[in-house]
């Protein structure tokens, strides 16, 4: 079921208010001069004019730390307890990223710690009103359309067009005074979303397929990777802020009573020194990506080449969060990929 509705600017506010009163609504809100996804307390909190959030919305299904099992002596129980929530105002690049993590957490062993939360969520996208300084979503994975969301809001003259994509999106219509959108309004919304694509400050110049092939071939250029990673802190910031990174580490901790406790997973980061350190038994260990250049290369390989086959497009959606997060400013995929493509 795909329908297009129109709501005036003023009624939109009432629509958000009505949702906030009866549902858990997560949306972009200001944090000093930056933005984060957080629970809306009122319609005024919502900042659809945000550029990009510090952390991607995946944290709503896959939080930075998540209890998986609670135990007490020899009894244990899983911690899956999905909360229904509306994610409102997700940009299209983050929708693409969520679609990737959806698929990655579903393949082979279905990960219900993620999937249960994901299925309980309704995702409503919104058009990009402000472009972040390091964005390049306009030129990355152009043939991969955003999907998996339940609706999409586009700001046009005088109000918003709301396009639903199925029952979950449709179920929200009752919270606002929506009218059927006219063809002209739908056309205007489409133009808004198309026009913004050419406006990113950074650009990739080649297709995802060309990039995937050539980046893979650059694997053995060791001196090239060493030079790129020279100022790398192995700090993992580029992983932690990335909407398509999905690695985690699992640890057990006991409560003070020493008989109860929890098994918890934490976001992990492949740039950190011990990420690839594995046990060989008997206290011996082996680190199969010991050098920082190897780890730096690995991330670029994953984003630009390795995951392409699985996902049908690059595992980078061009949000630019890694570029902004890297204090040495070496993480920007555009710099690395364009260097490889021009060589």
């Amino acid at each position, binding site marked *: 079921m795909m329908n297009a509705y129109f709501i005036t600017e003023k009624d939109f506010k009432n629509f958000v208010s009505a949702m906030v009163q009866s549902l858990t609504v997560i949306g972009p809100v200001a944090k000093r001069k930056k933005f984060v996804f957080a629970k809306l307390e009122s319609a005024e909190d919502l900042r659809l004019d945000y550029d990009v959030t510090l952390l991607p919305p995946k944290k709503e299904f896959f939080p930075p730390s998540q209890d998986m099992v609670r135990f007490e002596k020899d009894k244990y129980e899983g911690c899956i307890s999905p909360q229904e929530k509306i994610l409102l105002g997700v940009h299209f690049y983050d929708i693409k990223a969520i679609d990737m993590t959806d698929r990655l957490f579903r393949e082979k062993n279905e990960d219900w710690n993620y999937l249960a939360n994901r299925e309980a969520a309704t995702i409503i996208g919104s058009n990009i009103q402000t472009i972040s300084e390091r964005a390049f979503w306009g030129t990355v994975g152009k043939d991969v359309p955003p999907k998996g969301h339940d609706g999409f809001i586009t700001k046009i003259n005088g109000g918003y067009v709301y396009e639903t994509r199925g029952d979950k999106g449709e179920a929200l219509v009752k919270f606002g005074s929506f009218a059927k959108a006219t063809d002209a309004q739908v056309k205007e919304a489409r133009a808004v979303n198309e026009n913004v694509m050419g406006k990113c400050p950074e650009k990739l110049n080649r297709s995802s397929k060309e990039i995937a092939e050539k980046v893979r071939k650059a694997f053995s250029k060791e001196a090239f990777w060493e030079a790129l990673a020279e100022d790398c802190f192995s*700090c993992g910031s580029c992983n932690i802020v990335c909407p398509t990174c999905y690695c985690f580490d699992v640890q057990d901790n006991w409560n003070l009573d020493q008989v109860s406790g929890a098994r918890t997973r934490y976001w992990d980061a492949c740039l950190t020194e011990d990420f690839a350190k594995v046990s060989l038994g008997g206290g011996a260990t082996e680190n199969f990506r010991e050098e920082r250049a190897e780890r730096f290369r690995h991330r670029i390989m994953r984003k630009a080449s390795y995951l392409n086959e699985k996902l049908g497009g690059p595992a980078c959606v061009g949000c630019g969060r890694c570029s902004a997060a890297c204090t040495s400013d070496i993480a920007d995929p555009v710099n690395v990929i364009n260097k490889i493509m021009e060589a």
Partner: protein
Amino acid sequence: MAKAKVAFFDFTCCEGCQIEMTNFGDAAFLELLNHVEIVEFREVMSEKTKEPIDIALVEGSFTREADRKRLEEIRNRAKIVIAYGACAATGGVNALKNHMTDYKEDVYGKDAGMPHLDSQKALPISAAIKVDYCVYGCPMDKYELLRILSHLLHDKEPVIPNYPVCVECKRNGTICRYQEGDHCIGQVARAGCGAPCPADGIPCEACRGFVDKPNEKALKKVLIEKAKFSEKRAESKSRIFSANLRSDAQ
């Protein structure tokens, strides 16, 4: 399981980490006492033993050759030695003097020559004896101490992060100090504290010391280029808590 015999010892320090222990609150502390038996703790009890102990918790740095014997005695009695707090684990803030020669005159003035003020370089206790585990931080993180003790009580290897504070800072969704025109040295600091300082809007000073392989060169570059530090300030920045971990350690 039988209660583990635990003893506390202190060397050159401010005893702030012992104070941090008392911040557990009564309930938590009493619960802990169901699992360990404290046989020596100068701050709260007068008994002294010469008995074997399971876990020795040592605070403070090794700053006088005269302390070596006492440290060795502790080592000989203890199955496990834990250095707790920055002073014991890395030399901590005490090591700030290690690259200087005039510190005594500087601090004590005309009393500089008094015999009880004599000390040499401030070193981690691992410079004198074998240390099994460290609880980093100035002061140490009391929950990390609990976590380590808990793992040892269960005969499991405690996990102590070897990744920078940035990992925890980013997980928290904190705005990076550099994005607010400030500086920070969390990129080289060992995580485990949960990055409370940047979350409060102040830079990380690496009170937990460095990760195993800190990129000191890149840190200097970032401090100069992004935080607009002078070369000299950028060069000495990480000395405050990590003098002994720097590549120029004396």
